[in-house]
């Protein structure tokens, strides 16, 4: 018997649950592609500069270029893309100002490229692209604040992100002051302390609070964990805010007379976070897949970063430039990078699946692929295998002042970044030609 075609159920095109709130495909995807390119460039520059790290001041202009390639080009670019994509999930509201976010991406991309390039080459006119970066960040901040203002409620993930967005505003302001002071030397009474404040407001206040907040949602979701807590991270957020605000004010005003206290508070915040993550992972239904393995690697890296911070604050470690470099490297590559890479192994296939395969009319005749089929698990595990020595061999190189270890670690890092880019390309190969 022929069925009446008019009774065929219509899928909720455009008026559905998530798709109606989701940003256009190109918006987060541009961020992720640019971030992958920046990650590779950072790793390549790290190999190129490996022979010059030992004994170099962390404020050497080319090192600042390298650090900002990682913090802005790789980490912040990924985070902006993820926040655009996750807005409907995190805040239950569509991303506001999507055109503004699109404009911000152009400004940010060109600004970061110019800023890093001019720092790397030792030019003094880096303030021009730096002002583009600041303008872009202000646009992004406007978009996120506008979106959060429309959210029906902010859960603890949303609260972490809201705090992080506030810290980002302070980070760029302080960055501008530092740049001006570097050229004119007349504003800051404690420039070294202001740099400590800038670094920690960026790495703890902006980057880590977003990671911590988002991980409560994403790690639970991907691990299929049945954790019941309604207030994840309450203690973590409190301790992190007190420790970070104290550190920033203390370092900015006095150069950092009470660093031990702030180091203890920030470490306590991380221990509180670890405790919650342990509960989430204990209650998981899924086996450890590659994304979860990267998350575990990130958690270990965060612990190493805290240990180095305590060592520096309590003078257990000699406070020299190599240890400071190890400290920043542990944060950026030991803690932040594995977390981003792990989540990207879920987010990128999701985006492509949604764009290419999500049924919008009748079901296709062929079975739909699963998201895991859109990426190469073998390449992802190879990325993991390269990133582990990239982190720990390089850290050993900094701490033992060994050029050979730094060389080996930097080559592992380049291998990990190259494999990450290759896997991103494998996922993007599913896009139809001409997709924007």
């Amino acid at each position, binding site marked *: *018997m022929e*069925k*009446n075609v008019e*009774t*065929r*159920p*219509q*899928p*909720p095109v455009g008026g*559905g*649950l*998530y*798709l109606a709130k*989701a940003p256009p495909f190109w918006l987060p995807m541009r961020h992720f592609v640019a971030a992958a390119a920046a990650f590779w460039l950072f790793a390549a520059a790290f190999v190129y500069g490996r022979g010059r790290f030992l004994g170099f001041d962390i404020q050497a202009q080319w090192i600042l270029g390298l650090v900002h390639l990682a913090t802005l080009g790789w980490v912040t670019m990924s985070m902006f893309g993820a926040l655009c994509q996750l807005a*409907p*999930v995190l805040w*239950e509201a569509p991303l506001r100002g999507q055109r503004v976010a699109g404009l911000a991406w152009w400004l940010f991309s060109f600004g970061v490229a110019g800023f890093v390039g001019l720092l790397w080459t030792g030019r003094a006119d880096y303030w021009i692209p730096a002002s583009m970066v600041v303008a872009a960040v202000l646009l992004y901040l406007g978009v996120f604040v506008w979106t959060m203002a429309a959210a029906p409620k902010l859960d603890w993930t949303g609260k972490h992100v809201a705090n992080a967005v506030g810290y980002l505003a302070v980070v760029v302001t302080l960055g501008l002051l530092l740049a001006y002071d570097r050229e004119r030397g007349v504003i800051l009474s404690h420039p070294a302390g202001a740099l400590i404040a800038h670094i920690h407001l960026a790495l703890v206040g902006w980057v880590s609070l977003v990671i911590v907040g988002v991980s409560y949602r994403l790690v639970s*979701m*991907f691990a*299929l*964990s*049945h954790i019941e807590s309604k207030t994840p991270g309450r203690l973590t957020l409190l301790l992190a805010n007190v420790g970070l605000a104290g550190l920033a004010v203390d370092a900015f005003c006095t150069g950092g007379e009470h660093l031990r206290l702030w180091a203890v508070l920030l470490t306590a915040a991380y221990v509180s976070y670890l405790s919650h993550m342990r509960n989430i992972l204990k209650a998981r*239904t*899924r*086996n450890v897949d590659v994304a979860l393995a990267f998350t575990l690697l990130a958690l270990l890296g965060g612990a190493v970063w805290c240990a180095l911070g305590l060592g520096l604050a309590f003078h257990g470690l000699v406070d020299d430039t190599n240890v400071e470099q190890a400290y920043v490297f542990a944060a950026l590559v030991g803690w932040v990078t594995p977390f981003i890479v792990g989540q990207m192994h*879920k987010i990128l296939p*999701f985006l492509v*699946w*949604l764009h290419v*395969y*999500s*049924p*919008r009319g*009748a*079901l296709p005749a062929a079975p*739909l*692929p*699963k*998201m*895991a089929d859109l990426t190469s698990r073998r390449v992802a595990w190879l990325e993991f295998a390269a990133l582990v020595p990239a982190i720990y061999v390089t850290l050993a190189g900094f701490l033992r002042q060994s050029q050979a270890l730094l060389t080996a670690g930097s080559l592992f890092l380049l291998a990990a970044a190259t494999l990450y880019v290759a896997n991103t390309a494998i996922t993007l190969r599913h896009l139809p030609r001409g997709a924007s």
Partner: protein
Amino acid sequence: MNRAALAALKSVYDPEVGLDVVTMGLVYGLAQDDATLRVDMTLTSPNCPLGDSIVAMAREALWGVSGERKVDLRLVWEPPWSPRMISAEGVRTLQGGG
């Protein structure tokens, strides 16, 4: 009919988890009369990013077995879904034993 509808829903997969919606415990109720095939189902969360796709696939699958009946697929949020609702077979699959 219920058996056919259930079999149809077992062909609908969550593309991220890799399990079908019945094994995931997302189907809360299945009823029929002469005019309507009614299914109550939920999603892993109200903001599940795959919600639209899963609902579209479920509707399409049910349409294939509903005969002349109208398909009435309703999304319900009580009780909220939890991974505890995944069947034992599904848990074994997720943990690599299935």
